[in-house]
């Protein structure tokens, strides 16, 4: 690997960031990639009674919590009694999308207010990009930075998103695949709801799945016949609902049966992600989007054909579902198999703590470290919410 492919995290700016993309209010302060403070005000208690996130309620809670979160973050970063914040912080960063429009609005408005008050530039950040980069976060105590071996494949799997992103350099992204309907998290949440698991159903489903047998029933594996790296969980959602109804007819849904169903559905969600991950790894040319056929993969696995060696040197996993141990184990297993067949070792990198898998402002501040001087927007008026922002298609304000 040439030296040009490596990049040392040299950025050392101090940035305060805000994320209000969904149901958690978060404010963080980072110096470089070191997390000085990361405050999260959870709204779980508010949304629990309904079993989902109402945009209007989320907005209200964000409005009530945001200033307290800023104060607490400044305090934890040791900045609360500084007279001139401007001397200690270089910029304010904020999530502009994707997310819930009314929720995003609160964070953006507050970030603009702070930037004006402290006379600091404001940086608009894409939430998915931030999830993709979240494995680069490092604890306050850690001083040594590692090198990155590009290109990197980032998997962002969360309640709202399921994406494969090829990171050629920070800021240079190619979306290889994404979900065409429901995200993985959404599917798990919906099935959790069908099983009356409460809120947040997805997280509870994960716990129950650990005690279940995933092999009692079979569910169809979607998207195997299409030539792309996209995901689809809508069919699985339907098949799961039919399976649950069918099982309900046969017997009482006792504790063990619920666990078995949870395990079955979860395994199927992850199987699809792994299936597409394998295809990406075995693709002879990602820039031309060459999709290896199932038969080729079969031959490679039988060691009848040699696997093409991918350019990808690292895999980063981010997003709420990234905290799932079963998913992590499956990915590691896939990489081990790939190494056996191709001779290439690819390392899996995760956020250093589970809390950075969920929505957080630390990853927003981290992403802002890489934004160029030009993208810092002193004309804050231009920054607006972009609820359905994608990675690669960048915000107008940047």
């Amino acid at each position, binding site marked *: 690997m040439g030296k040009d492919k490596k990049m040392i995290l040299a950025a050392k700016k101090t940035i305060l960031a805000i994320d209000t993309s969904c149901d958690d209010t978060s404010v963080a302060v980072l110096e470089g990639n070191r997390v000085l403070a990361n405050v999260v005000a959870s709204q779980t208690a508010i949304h629990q009674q*309904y079993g989902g996130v109402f945009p209007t309620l989320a907005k209200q809670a964000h409005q009530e919590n945001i200033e307290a979160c800023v104060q607490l973050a400044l305090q934890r970063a040791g900045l609360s009694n500084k007279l001139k914040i401007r001397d200690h912080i270089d910029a304010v960063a904020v999530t502009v999308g994707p997310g819930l429009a009314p929720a995003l609005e609160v964070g953006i408005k507050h970030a603009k207010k702070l930037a004006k008050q402290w006379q600091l530039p404001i940086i608009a950040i894409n939430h998915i990009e931030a999830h993709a980069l979240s494995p680069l976060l490092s604890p306050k105590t850690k001083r040594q930075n590692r090198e990155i071996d590009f290109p990197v494949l980032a998997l962002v799997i969360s309640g*709202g998103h399921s994406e494969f992103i090829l990171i050629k350099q920070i800021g240079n992204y190619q979306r290889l695949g994404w979900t065409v309907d429901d995200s993985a998290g*959404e599917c798990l949440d919906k099935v959790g709801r069908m099983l009356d698991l409460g809120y947040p159903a997805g997280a509870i489903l994960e716990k129950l799945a650990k005690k279940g047998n995933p092999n009692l029933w079979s569910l169809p594996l979607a998207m195997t016949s299409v030539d792309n790296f996209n995901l689809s969980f809508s069919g699985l959602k339907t098949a799961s*609902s039919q399976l649950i109804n069918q099982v309900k007819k046969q017997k009482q849904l006792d504790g063990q049966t619920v666990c078995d169903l949870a395990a079955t559905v979860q395994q199927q969600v992850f199987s699809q992600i792994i299936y597409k991950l394998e295809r990406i790894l075995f693709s002879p040319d990602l820039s031309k989007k060459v999709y290896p056929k199932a038969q080729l993969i079969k031959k490679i696995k039988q060691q009848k054909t040699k696997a093409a060696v991918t350019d990808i040197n690292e895999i980063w996993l981010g997003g709420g579902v990234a905290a799932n141990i079963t998913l992590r184990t499956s990915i590691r297993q896939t990489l081990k198999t790939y190494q056996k067949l191709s001779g290439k070792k690819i390392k899996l990198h995760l956020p250093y703590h589970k809390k950075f898998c969920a929505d957080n402002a630390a990853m927003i501040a981290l992403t802002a470290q890489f934004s160029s001087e030009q993208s810092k927007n002193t004309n804050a008026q231009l920054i607006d919410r972009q*609820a359905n922002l994608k990675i690669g298609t960048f915000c107008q304000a940047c």
Partner: protein
Amino acid sequence: MAANPHDQQAINKLLKYKNRREGKPLSIAVSKQAMAEQYVIINQQAQNFYQRFLPGPYTVISQLRVNSQIDQRVASEFGTLGIRIPDYPLMLKLIEHLGHGITATSANASNKKRPYRIKDVLNNISEKQKQLIDLIIDVGQLAKNEPSVVIDTSLSTPLSMRGQLRTNDKFIEFNSQSESETQGLAMRLILKNLNNLKKQGLLFGLSGELGVGKTIFAKGAAKFLKIKEEITSPTYTYLNEYTYQKGTLQGIFYHLDAWKIDQEQEFSLLKVDQLLKANNILLIEWWDKIANFLPDNLKKQAIILDLSGQDNWRKIKLWEKTKK
């Protein structure tokens, strides 16, 4: 307003004349069915309408032929084309003489009153528009006929796009073989209700079990509105919003999933009554769960679809006036 559909320059002029159409397709007048068949594929449904109603004040929409050799801008964005066979000797003779169809759109400028004599037209158009007209045939005062009834026969069941087909059915039923029929229906229903959309917004209510194509329908609506983002199911957060721009038309497409909503108090948190206004579209999945929580005025304007089916077939029932 007649123009040669095979002539790009003529169509340029026509489209300039009829500006701000926002995707409303043109139609073509022919003299007989054989001529229509050069432009479109006439299926059994269409055949029935040709036999019963043409010549006469009906426009029958069919799938455009690939080799029709007309300017593509005459056809709809779904690859269909409306055909008329007028019941007016002068027109028929003119078409016969030319040997090809001519466009059959009305001469009024968009959003202006329906003209029944040449003066009505000339009084309502600009100098620039006047200069685009090459020839005026003045036959005096016309009979005050309604505009033609427009019937789309390109889906599994005929759908009237303008005017009413005389029928006693409370709903019409589509048998969808593919996602494209479900999406096509969504697109046609917005096109059909474009005037309502501009005036007060559109409300769609979809019911049906998981996996019958409700989100597919939403995707069709988004496609018509030229929304580029992927439309995903908003179960977790109830309501997604997408801003759209289609030609000069712009507004917000709201996609609401009521699957998890059981109580009126929950539904009221969404403040749905504030979402529906001119140029906005609100599409509600699991309509049957929340219909009773809606104020009557909203319920009345809803276009309601009931989807069912499994594997490769889907049945879609459509109520254009509120279901009881």
